[in-house]
């Protein structure tokens, strides 16, 4: 106890705990999906810890990469199989949790004033996360690693003129995907991107606290009457959710890894032989389905980037004074359309590209855009509704 007192007198940690955890009041009606943020932080930690272990044994060199990952880490390093499984499954779980987190934010309109910057920072995290997953995927240097990356670095080639080819060249370091690419993807994946992510996640968390957490009703609430202390009410609840999440995660790690370490990737990369089925990981399949459903390469490229841009611009597309899909029946209907289109595109992305599949892909792409187009229209309707009900003052941005 002497040591605890010694540290306390010099750091005042208990004061920070009191002010940040106990005196921090959050709405008491927070629903289950509000836990996805904490789960994302846990998934990030899992990736960093397992990545640190893999970093000790992985060799970023074309003749060594596959053997170091598939033989040395898998068979020779004690518990190496465990850390590689955790890292591979963890990437998928991380992306899944982040998608659920974003869908929750969209459902409760957590991107609206005063939380626009929270959304923008979150989007940057999402984008960096896709890059991190993409750069990590090449490192095992298996057949899927090689060819999925080859296809990915060819995508900027859709930009006409020299710009597209220049970007492809910068990504590969030349005309062939080889050692230079492994080296830079390795550096990006193990240090540069995680370091930036750490910074951006910190800013995101700071902004969440600065703007205050949204509440599922979307109505202004009285902090004193309707708030509960973060600790122990929410910490214990989220702790329980986190334990359940980890149990589910480790079920997959131990008993069901075949989807996360697919068989094709246990063959070393062969630059002269494309596997018959080549498609990106599931978290990119939605964009991939849009890209290949549109018969023109450049327009496909523009369209899937437009979807990314529209997600970023969501706070400005939706300017309705009413928050939360609970109180917005029109928005709720379109939200269902959005989820349906997103899930549809992801499923379409797993199918082989026949003309019929491309047609269905175009239909889902249209639905996706219908959601984004409907937002300003719904906002206009609800603006009139709010004015009629005399809720305009609140619309101008009352704290909630």
């Amino acid at each position: 106890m002497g040591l605890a007192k010694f540290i306390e007198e010099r750091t005042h940690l208990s004061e920070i705990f009191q002010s940040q955890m106990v005196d921090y009041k959050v709405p008491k009606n927070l629903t289950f999906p509000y836990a996805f943020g904490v789960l994302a932080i846990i998934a990030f930690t899992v990736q960093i810890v397992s990545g640190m272990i893999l970093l000790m044994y992985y060799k970023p060199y074309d003749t060594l990469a596959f053997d170091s990952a598939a033989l040395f880490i898998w068979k020779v390093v004690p518990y190496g199989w465990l850390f590689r499984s955790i890292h591979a499954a963890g990437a998928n779980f991380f992306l899944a949790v982040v998608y659920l987190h974003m869908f929750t934010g969209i459902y409760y309109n957590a991107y609206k004033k005063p939380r626009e910057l929270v959304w923008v920072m979150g989007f940057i995290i999402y984008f960096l996360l896709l890059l991190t997953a993409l750069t990590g995927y090449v490192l095992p240097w298996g057949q899927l690693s090689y060819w999925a990356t080859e296809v990915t670095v060819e995508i900027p080639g859709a930009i006409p003129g020299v710009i597209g080819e220049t970007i492809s060249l910068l990504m590969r370091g030349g005309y062939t995907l080889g050692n230079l690419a492994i080296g830079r993807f390795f550096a990006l994946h193990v240090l540069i991107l995680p370091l930036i992510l750490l910074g951006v996640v910190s800013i995101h968390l700071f902004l969440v606290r600065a703007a205050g957490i949204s509440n599922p009703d979307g109505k202004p609430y009285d902090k004193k009457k309707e708030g509960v202390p973060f600790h122990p009410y929410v910490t214990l609840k989220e702790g329980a959710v986190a334990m359940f999440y980890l149990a589910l995660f480790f079920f997959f790690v131990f008993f069901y890894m075949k989807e996360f370490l697919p068989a094709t990737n246990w063959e070393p990369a062969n630059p002269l032989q494309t596997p018959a089925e080549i498609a990106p990981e599931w978290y990119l399949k939605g964009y991939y389905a849009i890209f290949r459903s549109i018969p023109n390469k450049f327009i496909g490229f523009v369209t899937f980037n437009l979807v990314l841009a529209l997600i970023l611009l969501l706070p400005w597309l939706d300017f309705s004074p009413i928050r939360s899909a609970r109180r917005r029946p029109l928005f709720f209907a379109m939200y269902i359309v959005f989820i349906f289109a997103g899930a549809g595109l992801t499923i379409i992305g797993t199918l082989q590209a026949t003309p019929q599949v491309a047609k269905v892909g175009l239909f889902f792409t249209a639905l996706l855009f219908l959601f984004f187009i409907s937002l300003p229209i719904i906002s206009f309707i609800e603006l009139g509704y709010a004015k009629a009900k005399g809720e305009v003052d609140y619309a101008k941005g009352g704290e909630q």
Partner: protein
Amino acid sequence: MEASRRDFMQYVVGAFGAVAAVGAAYPILKSLGPNAAAALQSKVDYDVSQLKPMDVRVTSWKGFPVFVMMLPTPFNWNGPERNNKYKNHNRDILGNHNVYAIIGKCTHLGCIPLWKPDGDSAMNPSNVPVFHCPCHGSIYTPWGDNISGPAPLPLGIPPQALNGNTLEIGTPGFVKKFWDPYT
């Protein structure tokens, strides 16, 4: 007077900062670009003066294996054709040129086809010169059009120009654009 001097200093410091930022970004970006060895692969000159009719030589362009070949003039080829969208696709692109380069990577699963000037015994008629992919038995015409076997598309054709005895692969000439079956 004080204020304007301070303003001036502000602009100067800002300008030098901007120059320094650009100066730092330039080598970083350049270090990521292709090095001299890689840049050499983007344009390959091949001396065809030593080639005899029906010869095929292998070189490399942008990491692809490339067949440089010379057909006799006139050259009559009466092998089979595949009656689909890609019928005589490469032959039309290459026109009447008898010296040209095609990408030597089978469009089925990426093996390197073999040149069989006397035909392939597995084929009927077997006496026409063809490319035969040993992996799964795809057959291509001397222009790289797929005529039988599992290969879905003709072989790729790099942009190329013929300048005297030099076949310039990678330089837009009688073939202007890279026809790439993989994109």
